């Protein structure tokens, strides 16, 4: 089964996203910050990462840059899912290697559409 790693410091967001992603057929793993997520990826590289931006310890952008440096780290699709909704932030995320970008709040329709656009349909 395809694996999606949800990286978000909000337990509620992780729970909501997990339900949506499981409905889309993903096997879901969770991490509460970038450092935890990076450690997880070093063990098992997921197919896709749903990534928050603002988190303690290591933020989403730092995680993404770190992930892309890891062996096999270019492979996962990374979909940001964040309250950051300015063009500058979106551009920075794309330039850092993000594949798609969701501005919170989100719903199942938006996640499904964005995953399809990232080639994950």
């Amino acid at each position, binding site marked *: 089964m395809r694996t999606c790693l949800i990286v978000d410091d909000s337990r509620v967001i992780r729970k909501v996203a997990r339900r949506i992603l499981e409905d889309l057929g993903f096997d879901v793993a969770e991490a509460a910050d970038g450092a935890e997520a990076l450690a997880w990826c070093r063990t098992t590289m997921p197919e896709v990462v749903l990534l928050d931006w603002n988190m303690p310890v290591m933020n989403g952008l730092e995680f993404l840059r770190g992930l892309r440096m890891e062996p096999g780290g270019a492979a996962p699709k990374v979909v940001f899912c964040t309250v950051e*909704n*300015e*063009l500058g932030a*979106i*551009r920075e995320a*794309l330039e850092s290697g*993000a594949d*798609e*970008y*969701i*501005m919170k709040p*989100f719903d199942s*329709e*938006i996640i499904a*559409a*964005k995953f*399809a*656009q990232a080639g994950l349909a």
Partner: protein
Amino acid sequence: MKPEDRELVAQLCAARSGQKVDPAKDYLIETRLGAVARREGFDSIGDLMTGLRAQREDRLIWAIVEAMAAGDTSFFRDRTPFDHFREVQAPELARRRGEQPIRIWSAACSTGQEVHSLAMLVDDMAGQWPDARFELFGSDLSERALEKAQSGLYTQFEVQRGLPIRSLVRHFEKVDDMWVISPQLRQSIRWRRLNLIGDLSRVRGFDLIFCRNVIGGMIEPARQRLVENLAAALNPGGQVVFGVDEDPVAGAEPLRQVEGAPGLFALSATDRAAA
């Protein structure tokens, strides 16, 4: 809302726009007409219908018909027709039309997402055929939908339904909490209010017409009228894109389905010869 009022709404929609409205769908009708009543200064939908029966004012009838016709839409909706446009139709038209304008009509464009999606694709492909001149047109029955379409302003929710993030970054600016499509794209589209079952004798010369998710919601005589109007508006070799699940022409005339392309129809051979 009284059953006879819902019946009247259904009759008006059938007569004016050919739209099939089920009088039993009270929630849908009341949701749509509640907004009309507020906008027109009535205290309730009941008052709106009483006012309508008393005066039969044309403007009020159209406000009701337009409200009932409002459809759901999103950027690159159903994706496949846009992929087909980018990969097959646009290159073929660019080759065939040379320096002649390539005219594309989004016939029921609602709030503009479909024709703006086409405008983005055309802009993205601009360098591929330097001589090609694409002309885009958007029309809808609803004046209010057209106003929004022309403004090019969309909510965060709307730009996340179907629009790839790179297209958002390339073609939109953020204005407060809204997103606005670039002036260049907005100004590349010509807009007009049109009733697709009305007199369209001056609407001619299109190479490609998008008319998706309209005909499936129409009563029978209106469906035929719509097909005739669209066929008459096509250039020789032109095509109409209906919804993928729509079967618009039971008798196949004057359009025929293009094999292997669900929802895609072209002028039948005899009409093409006559055109």
